[in-house]
């Protein structure tokens, strides 16, 4: 193996057989006794699936927990928008599923760029998640016998996805939110809503707290803790247009990065194949149509460019190209997301796209309605069809949906070890905010699984390993020079934004950044385009800091200021994403470099040179980030070419 891991990146994967690692780890990890837990403070930033579940579970264990969310309520986090479902290796269908198969599918789906140890643990705890959620009262779909129903999802050949109509994320988040609410009422967790974390504080190399801004009055607050857990989601909004909620941002993770936390695989971006296409310049966000639709919908475009302007119902069967079924007969319309997205882009690049912009493909339910009946299809997808009709004015029961890929999820994130700790001792990252489980591509219905796995069943164990050494620390003062300095740097940053006193709005910069990222660091990337993008982003950054205009003041409720701080961080992240994409001279999963493809247009992976995690270290503004490598060693799964043919 040519790749050597940097000595400062210790993944701490336990020794032993893959299926024994987590069990052995749990059996030997140091514990914190109940009377000591009471003396330990933990800060959780974010209240989505990972944050709410972690806060509730740690509160139940007896730690003093503080939860920070910039929303008005912890129930608003973007986890709520997940539609399709949550995977678990329950094998309730008797269709041959197992922990190993979920583990294998996730490793393969991630294009052999995820850590085996983490992924196996994820598959192991997946079954407990479903148990926990049902016990909380999450109303999963059921069959007439009263037992749980499942459906299949992209990238798998079993039905292991549990779902709650098209609102699985909502129901799971409300379950976690209720568990969190219970701990708040019991006093183990204190909630800080409308508070945004703007810096982490390190003292002698250990993470000791955060600086948060009270969004109602602009006050900067210091909060200390023995450990800080970032559950702050992904950074898809760097593209401006994405399926992420408007307020999703990278600021917490990026501020941690600037304080020394490594940012891993930033270029791995998931472009979801089934979103409602862009309709105009004013567009503020994109709407996802659940991947579950591909269970019954068939993707097609006209065979002939000349037919692209016709009404879809006027194009006869023999003139349609069901391109996924043609290219990938084994998986058909259920190929993983990266493959489905790229295939859609390819047919549109060939000029066979449909709709007014010609940047869309059809997703057709006519056959499914004929086969299963209108009522069955409505029961499965009714709310999704309604949502589609509200936005586009077209009824998918009568004509095919038009869909196009859009940015949806980011596999990259803060580098963490097996214990979910970043390289800063005491600073953890869970859920989409870390990089650990999905490799270069995430399978559908696995984001909810990972968020809840981290929060309910992983972190509550692993955090004890670190906190057992903190029982003699005692209360941490916020009067130290380190807190002082961190608060000052946040204050200076805000003042610098106001000092620009320029002419352009924050939104206009964000939109320009998004266009650069989508055009040059989106579905297809080239060395030339990425090099240009880096130069353009550097110029944009200078222009931002010299010509941005912010209304209002820093000491009041001011959403424009919140946005400005986030966009400033997105600009820096955008550059790092391009640099990561440029350095990775291969195509894998969500990272497709056009120079590296096979003759039939599939991703051409280079395991010999790139089978590693790229963890980037911040070196200062206008300095190039330094690359650290963590080699990926596959002990169990045989690394092979990923094929869904």
């Amino acid at each position, binding site marked *: 193996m040519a790749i050597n891991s940097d000595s400062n990146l210790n993944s701490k994967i336990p020794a032993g057989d893959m299926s024994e690692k987590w069990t052995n780890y749990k059996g030997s990890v140091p514990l914190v006794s109940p009377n000591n837990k009471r003396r330990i403070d933990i800060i959780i930033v974010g209240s989505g699936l990972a944050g709410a579940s972690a806060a509730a579970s740690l509160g139940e264990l007896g730690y003093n927990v503080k939860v920070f969310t910039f929303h008005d309520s912890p129930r608003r986090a973007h986890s709520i*928008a997940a539609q399709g479902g949550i995977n678990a290796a329950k094998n309730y269908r008797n269709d041959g599923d197992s922990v190993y198969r979920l583990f294998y599918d996730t490793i393969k789906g991630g294009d052999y760029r995820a850590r085996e140890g983490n992924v196996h643990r994820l598959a192991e705890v997946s079954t407990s998640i479903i148990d926990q959620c049902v*016990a909380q009262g999450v109303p999963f779909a059921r069959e007439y016998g009263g037992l749980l129903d499942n459906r299949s999802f992209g990238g798998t050949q079993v039905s292991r996805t549990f779902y709650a109509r098209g609102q699985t994320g909502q129901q799971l988040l409300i379950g976690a*939110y209720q568990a969190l609410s*219970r701990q708040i009422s019991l006093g183990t967790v204190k909630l800080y809503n409308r508070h945004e974390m703007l810096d982490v504080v390190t003292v002698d190399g250990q993470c000791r707290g955060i600086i948060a801004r009270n969004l109602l009055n602009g006050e900067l607050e210091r909060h200390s803790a023995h450990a800080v857990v970032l559950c702050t989601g992904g950074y898809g909004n760097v593209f401006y247009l994405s399926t992420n909620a408007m307020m999703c941002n990278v600021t917490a993770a990026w501020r941690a990065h600037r304080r020394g936390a490594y940012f891993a695989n930033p270029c791995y971006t998931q472009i979801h194949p089934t979103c409602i296409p862009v309709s105009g310049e004013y567009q503020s966000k994109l709407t996802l149509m659940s991947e579950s639709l591909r269970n019954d919908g068939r993707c097609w475009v006209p065979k002939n460019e000349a037919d692209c302007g016709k009404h879809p119902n006027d194009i006869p069967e023999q003139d349609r190209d069901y391109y996924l079924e043609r290219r990938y007969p084994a998986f058909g319309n259920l190929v993983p997301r990266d493959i489905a997205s790229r295939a859609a882009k390819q047919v549109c690049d060939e000029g066979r796209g449909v709709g007014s912009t010609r940047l869309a493909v059809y997703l057709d339910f006519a056959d499914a309605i004929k086969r299963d009946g209108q009522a069955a299809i409505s029961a499965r997808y009714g709310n999704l069809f309604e*949502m589609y009709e509200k936005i586009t004015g077209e009824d998918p029961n009568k004509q095919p949906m038009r869909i196009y890929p859009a940015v949806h999820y980011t596999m990259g994130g803060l580098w963490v070890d097996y214990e979910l700790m970043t390289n800063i001792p005491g600073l953890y990252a869970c859920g989409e905010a870390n990089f650990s489980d999905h490799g270069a591509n995430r399978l559908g219905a696995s984001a909810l699984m990972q968020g809840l796995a981290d929060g309910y069943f992983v972190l509550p164990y692993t955090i004890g390993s670190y906190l057992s050494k903190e029982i003699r620390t005692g209360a941490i003062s916020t009067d130290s020079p380190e807190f002082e300095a961190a608060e000052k740097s946040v204050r200076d940053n805000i003042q610098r934004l106001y000092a620009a006193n320029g002419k352009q709005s924050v*939104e206009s910069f964000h939109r320009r950044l998004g266009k650069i990222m989508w055009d040059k660091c989106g579905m297809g990337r080239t060395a030339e385009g990425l090099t240009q993008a880096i130069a353009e982003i550097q110029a944009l950054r200078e222009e931002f800091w010299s010509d941005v205009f912010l*209304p209002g003041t820093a000491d009041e409720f001011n959403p424009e200021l919140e946005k400005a701080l986030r966009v400033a961080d997105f600009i820096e992240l955008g550059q790092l994403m391009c640099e990561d994409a440029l350095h990775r001279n291969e195509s894998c999963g969500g990272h497709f470099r056009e120079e590296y493809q096979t003759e039939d247009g599939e991703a051409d992976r280079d395991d010999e040179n790139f089978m590693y995690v790229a963890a980037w270290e911040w070196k200062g503004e206008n300095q190039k980030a330094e690359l650290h490598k963590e080699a990926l060693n596959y002990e169990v799964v045989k690394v092979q070419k990923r094929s869904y043919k």
Partner: protein
Amino acid sequence: MKLTLKIWRQGGKYKGEFVNYELPDVNPDMSFLEMLDVLNEQLISRREDPVSFEHDCREGICGTCSMVIDGRPHGPMKGTTTCQVHMRHYNDGETIVIEPFRAMAFPVVKDLVVDRSAFDRIIQSGGYVSVNTGQAQDANAIPIEKTIASEAFDAATCIGCGACVAACPNASAMLFTSAKVSHLALLPQGQVERKRRVLNMIAQMDKEGFGQCSNVKACEAECPKEISVSNIARLNREYISASLTADVK
């Protein structure tokens, strides 16, 4: 199309007043919130204070967006949040009146933004099943009849937006509270704490300053998730039954 927006401004230099804004060029395919984005871009370019409003997912599920549009919470369309209203439903030359949700228990933060944390406190008072992480039995050990599960689901789809309160002449939170009480009372998992839950949640609801229900049913008409008022009937039954029989108050 050309529209006039009459928007409630409160906070900063505004003590509380309607201000008129002209939008000369509104695209019918825009969403309502995208139209407000355009307005705010114009205000910012004139160095004026943009209109504060809350929004996040813009898919109708997070419950963050609010506002009363022409007298109706979440605007004119049935079963639809503000973020899912599109401008194709308006006509050229119209004037649209936009106000915050108004209720004593939802104090205005700024302009169209209100504080709905009272809802969180109602949930904290009992809107959960007390099951610690790791305590659960196998998920299929609790069979639930499909129709019951479906009814519980209908109640559980509440997004906590507060439109029910804004629609109610009494600013009552009965629909919100009853949705959570119903969701958990219908399921076997919710039985153990059933009585305690309803008593505590009603007590908290009253403490927050929400009004009483007088069967106007405006809440159901305006609820973007179309939560049924039959949940309120269930809440009343649950409350009376618990009041008469519960050991714990």
